[in-house]
């Protein structure tokens, strides 16, 4: 119990240290960034906490000048980063109010955040209206740059969710899994429905004649999946696909594994990496997991990712999962853009128009490799995606990934001006998947 209380206080202290900064105008010789993520609610544990922990590790290290090159300039352009942390819980209306507060009261120089697609869609027009450079780090809705088709201040360094599902379909086909019939279990809201739509469309292109055995859409946070597991087992598909996340995903794996559902067929979880160290053998070896991009356990080995992994583990005594990497990527992108915009003027906050101009089409190094802001007219990151099989070693009690296969961004991302749905239905024209 003491441990639990200590951990809780540590998380709050981490958020508090960032949040407790004094409120005054931005002319204080600091670069003020609004950081928005879930600190409460069901998304806090799997996504919010790793992301805020990642932000804390990076911001502290940047302010101390301890991040490896090319980010070894202190803070952002030599200015200390002052983070104003906001809880994303509470719905889109509340988030719009919070965003206006960040812009008008806290006078932030930029905002980094947002996990919920609903929040991103609500914030995007407000960011454009107020002219605040805003970097979405995680939300995956395809509608972001379909609705805001002439973005100026809005950027996204995370990937579109369609890529998760196109990548999942390609992985299943390329690794030779039997895929004559597929079944899905998704949370019943836009995330689950869009994921299933993209996945089935991609599978129908890659494996014509594939049958849909059953599709289940339980309520989000339902927790009990007994009837759905029976329905999946009776339909006896070759593949089960799920875009479940957080507690729902862990409960599905636990209950499905206890009933042998996962033993007999291939299961793919697009967000599975976020619980890699939490399954502790309760997931069947061979379960296919993704990380919504080259993040977390799928991050390539490079100086930045090695540094971040070591720094995160040292500070938090746990492995960083993909939300931590995605948050770090967004802040690094902002730093790279701001320093490019303020080139030759160290110690200054660049004009916001110069900052977004520098961010547009930027190529920068990140913990996930090189990021090209080359989609959505230079406002959306183009990156690849990887999937692999979960394996748990009972002796060492450690989980690892095997049979990892990565796809380049050009292989799984529609070209500018084409929606993911159109691109999939047209048979992925122009996809460059290499050998």
């Amino acid at each position, binding site marked *: 119990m003491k441990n639990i209380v200590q951990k809780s206080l540590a*998380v709050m202290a981490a958020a508090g240290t960032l949040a407790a900064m004094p409120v005054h105008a931005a002319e204080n010789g600091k670069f003020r960034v609004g950081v928005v993520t879930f600190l409460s609610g069901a998304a806090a544990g*799997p996504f919010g906490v790793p992301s805020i922990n990642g932000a804390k590790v990076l911001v502290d290290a940047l302010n101390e000048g301890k991040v490896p090159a090319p980010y070894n300039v202190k803070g952002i352009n030599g200015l200390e980063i002052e983070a104003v942390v906001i809880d994303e819980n509470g719905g889109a209306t509340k988030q719009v109010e919070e965003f206006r507060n960040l812009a008008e009261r806290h006078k932030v120089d930029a905002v980094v955040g947002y996990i919920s697609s609903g929040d991103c869609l609500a914030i995007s027009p407000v960011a454009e209206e107020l002219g605040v450079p805003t970097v979405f780090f995680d939300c995956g809705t395809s509608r972001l740059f379909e609705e805001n088709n002439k973005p100026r201040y809005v950027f996204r360094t995370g990937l579109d969710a369609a890529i998760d599902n196109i990548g999942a379909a390609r992985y299943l086909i390329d690794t030779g899994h039997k895929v004559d019939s597929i079944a899905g279990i998704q949370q019943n809201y836009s995330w689950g429905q869009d994921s299933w739509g993209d996945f089935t469309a991609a599978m129908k292109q890659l494996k014509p004649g594939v049958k849909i055995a059953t599709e289940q859409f339980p309520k989000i946070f339902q927790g*009990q999946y*007994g009837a759905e597991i029976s329905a999946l087992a009776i339909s006896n598909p070759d593949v089960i696909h799920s875009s479940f996340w957080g507690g729902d995903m*862990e409960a599905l794996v636990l209950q499905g594994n*206890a*009933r042998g559902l996962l033993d007999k067929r291939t299961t793919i979880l697009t967000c599975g990496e976020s619980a890699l160290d939490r399954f502790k053998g*309760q997931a069947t070896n061979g379960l296919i997991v993704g990380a919504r991009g080259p993040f977390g356990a799928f991050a390539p080995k490079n100086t930045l990712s090695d540094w971040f992994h070591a720094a995160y583990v040292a500070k938090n005594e746990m492995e960083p999962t993909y939300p931590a990497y995605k948050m770090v990527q967004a802040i690094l992108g902002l730093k790279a853009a701001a320093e490019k915009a303020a080139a030759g003027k160290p110690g200054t906050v660049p004009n916001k128009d110069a900052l977004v101009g520098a961010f547009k089409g930027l190529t920068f190094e990140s913990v996930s490799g090189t990021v090209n802001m080359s989609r959505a007219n230079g406002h959306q990151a183009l990156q690849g995606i990887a999937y692999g099989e979960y394996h748990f070693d009972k002796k060492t009690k450690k989980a690892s990934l095997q049979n990892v296969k990565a796809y380049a961004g050009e292989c799984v991302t529609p070209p500018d001006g084409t929606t993911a749905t159109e691109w999939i239905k047209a048979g992925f024209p122009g996809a460059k998947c290499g050998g």
Partner: protein
Amino acid sequence: MTTFYAIFIDGMIYASWLFLVAAGLTVIYGVMRILNMAHGSFYAIGAYCAASLVGWYFSDFDGNPYLSYLLLIGCALVAGLVVGVVIEQGLLRFMYKRNELLMIIITYALLLILEDATKLAFGVDPYFTYQPYALLGRSDIGGLAFANYDLLLVVVSAAIGLFCWLVLNRTHIGKVLRAVIHDREVAVAMGVNVRLMFAGTFIFGTTLGALAGALTAPSISVSPGIGVEVIVLAFAVVVVGGLGSIEGAIVGALLVGMTRSLAVHLAPQIELFVIYGVMSLVLAVRPQGLFGRTLARKI
């Protein structure tokens, strides 16, 4: 045929879980006329206590794994008792003469406070305490595997339902409670210590809520917000069955559980709708619920 078995067994398992969650809520309303919005928090507290204690037992001890079931039940009883006593003695006993609507607001405030208190005590990271769930293995019924833990839950739920019914209908204390339920003022006039009955009922209700959470914890990921999620379902069950009726809660849980199971297997597109569809249908025909009594309003 397999689908038929599956609908029945899945329906029974879900219904037994629904009854576990709703039992405490209906007991408290039946005796005290308090529509307890904080019931979901008692469920969450039970789940967190069980998950953290059992998690600690399996990570730090090499003891008999079957002892974890005792820990589950023991910690739920202690947590329910402590929370019940603190809330009843520290808050509710000062509010008993307030009207029912105000009590809803008070218990809603309590729900918000307890949600944050739970977060402060246990953090926002999910707890994954799977061992008691996996330990019992699985059984093959009609060609379909079911977790024995879930099947055992049906038995436990039936035992709790039977216990509640026997206490209410076959014991002296049950007679006294029914007198309080029937007419509080006459019960007082007859020398019944209503305050003591209220305190006992509330503590029993919180303990049932905590027990439901503890028994559910091994099969889910215990995370913030689980209490809020279950309270909606619990209300649906007790409204269908009739507020304050144990028999009603049993029938309501069976009706909702079976209908939902039927929908999942035969028409998954309407699964989300059927629970509230059943509730609406019952309320349209019997606004007081299947086992609810129509009460004359005192002026």
